[in-house]
């Protein structure tokens, strides 16, 4: 296999070499426990403080507003639970249909525990209609929880407007910003967000570390109970190396925010080239989208087959097709967007990073037309049957 062309950065990212360098001493030399009463442990505590400053800076937040966690899933679970305990009398929750599984499945469980949950719908671009939020929210709403940007399509939600609505009704506003930190500027000082989740491995830190932003003054209750780490808000001995890495990654992310324009240019170049292939479509909101993401539907062929074909050239991407999910259902995000099945099963997401080069993008553009052509030649479906297929699929779906 040739060198890897990694265009799956919304799944996870390469750890920045500078991050690795920052971490290493804490895996070898400085192995002390920051809670210990000796200076050997104490110097680790200082390093943690430094990491907290770095993460706070990326979010324009205060250090005391940052809690280190183990991952995005923990951050989201903690935030949602904290919102419920903050206002125990309120039994209504609002989220969207396109959230990450760690949010959606938690809400499903909360429904079983007696909460009423409104799942806001999205349009064919994956975008929210805030009127729907306004219609759903009441004085009984404890929490509005939504992602900042969608991992599959890159569609960015109007979170600040949504937060303003939440505020009006006294509901907690939680945002899953896992895909956004390091890609779009964040400023918690002028934000309506109460709780916000970020994850290390999406911004060139290692896996197994994340952070939760908790607005000062928020009545926070921890999920993990135990020692006094994180000022009693997240018990458990700190993942020191991970946290140091996240701190460094946050610092680098801020430095590189300016490069995002270059990333976007490359993304646009890739997208333009791919759209030149017949019967392709962008899935997502072109106007409000992460600069690094493009999700394209290649009609009449199936995503997993495309991915395996790309794999031959060392190109890594992902797909919303049923066959890649391990379940038999295609992506819940693309389905919520009401995309036709012809597009849905052949959807491929390319997500770039600051390491992506023009040569890599061009290599994808070089091989993709051939891959699509080959698979389309194998397929029994093609554009001549478009109308017939559409009718048939509708009949099939209607029958269910």
């Amino acid at each position, binding site marked *: 296999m040739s060198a890897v062309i990694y265009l799956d950065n919304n799944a996870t990212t390469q750890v920045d070499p500078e991050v690795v360098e920052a971490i290493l001493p804490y895996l070898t030399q400085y192995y002390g426990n920051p809670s210990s009463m000796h200076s050997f442990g104490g110097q680790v505590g200082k390093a943690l403080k430094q990491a907290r400053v770095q993460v706070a800076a990326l979010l324009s937040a205060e250090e005391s507003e940052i809690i280190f966690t183990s991952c995005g899933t923990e951050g989201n679970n903690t935030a949602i639970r904290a919102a419920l305990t903050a206002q125990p009398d309120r039994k209504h929750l609002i989220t969207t249909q396109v959230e990450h599984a760690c949010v959606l499945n938690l809400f499903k469980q909360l429904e079983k525990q007696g909460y009423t949950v409104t799942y806001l719908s999205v349009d064919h671009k994956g975008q929210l209609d805030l009127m729907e939020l306004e219609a759903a929210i009441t004085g009984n709403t404890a929490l509005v929880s939504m992602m900042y940007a969608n991992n599959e399509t890159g569609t960015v939600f109007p979170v600040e407007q949504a937060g303003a609505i939440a505020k009006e009704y006294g509901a907690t506003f939680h945002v899953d910003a896992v895909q956004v930190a390091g890609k779009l500027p964040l400023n918690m000082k002028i934000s309506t967000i109460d709780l916000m989740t970020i994850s290390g491995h999406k911004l060139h830190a290692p896996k197994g570390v994340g952070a939760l932003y908790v607005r000062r003054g928020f009545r926070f209750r921890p999920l993990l109970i135990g020692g006094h780490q994180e000022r009693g808000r997240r018990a458990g001995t700190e993942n020191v190396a991970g946290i140091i890495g996240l701190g460094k990654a946050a610092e680098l992310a801020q430095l590189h925010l300016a490069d995002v324009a270059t990333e976007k240019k490359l993304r646009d170049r890739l997208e333009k080239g791919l759209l030149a292939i017949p019967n392709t479509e962008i899935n997502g909101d072109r106007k409000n989208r992460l600069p690094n993401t493009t999700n394209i539907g290649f009609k009449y062929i*199936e995503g997993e*087959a495309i991915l395996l074909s790309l794999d*031959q050239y060392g190109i890594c991407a992902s797909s919303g097709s049923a066959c*890649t999910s391990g379940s038999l259902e295609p992506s819940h995000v693309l389905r919520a967007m009401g995309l036709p*099945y012809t597009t849905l099963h052949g959807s491929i997401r390319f997500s770039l990073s600051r390491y992506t080069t023009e040569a890599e993008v061009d290599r994808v553009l070089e091989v993709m037309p051939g891959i699509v052509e080959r698979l389309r*030649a*194998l397929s*029994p479906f093609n554009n001549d049957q478009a109308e017939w297929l559409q009718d048939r699929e509708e009949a099939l779906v209607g*029958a269910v």
Partner: protein
Amino acid sequence: MWDYSEKVLDLFYNPKNQGAIEDPNQDGVAVVFGEVGSIACGDALRLHLKIEVEADKILDARFQTFGCTSAIASSSALTEIIKGITLDAALNISNRDIANYLGGLPEEKMHCSVMGQEALEAAIFKYRGIEVEQHEDDDGALICSCFGVSENRIRRVVIENNLTTVEQVTSYVKAGGGCSSCGAEIEDLIAAIQQEKELTASRVAAEIATAQAQNRPLTTVQKINLVQTVLQEVRPMLLADGGDVELYDVEGDTVKVVLKGACGSCSSSTATLKNAIEVRLRERVLPTLIVEAVS
């Protein structure tokens, strides 16, 4: 990422027999295709056969597949397996044969091999003018509405592949893989099939034991009883294909059966069925039994 065998990857990257077959409009040669699946489900296979009418033989087989790596590989494998064999022999091909040819499939991908087997059957039945069971019209037997899977289709894979869990059924025919509300029903069905199987086995064993204890061959009445139980087991599979079987008589070691519906309407398929039933009866009752189809 799925753990595919070398053979799967090879047939995916370099598929054999892709495309459609042009009808040569030649005497004695027929061209037909069978299709299963849909874009909604995420995979579909159109299998084209060129048939030598006189010999009832597959001259050429080609495929067009919309689907994942293993769907494409399974389709290609199927065409390789069936080229040059008779339609009767082709009808005996099971999804396991396809999976074996590929050096195995990840269990979650077994439905790709089932799709191959079903497309083959669809093509042959179409050629022979046999109505295939319409799942949509047959609500009573529909177990999984998400994927339109009937009781008979589930029965068939469960029996043919010795499946024991709902997850396995989902992997083989997708049933249960959507809203999963049909899970309990699938579980019941698996239990029922298991029970039927055990019942037959214990009844057969008991009868044979008695006969042996009394040191005499099975009486005709005993044979009839045993044959009946085994036929009950085979019936669901025939029903799935739009046919049925009934015991007509037992004379010595000759078992006479009436083949009905789809099975009875064409002479060549009777041979297949006769064989399939005979194999089963010999295995379960007496190795000397001969099956004869009467009309």
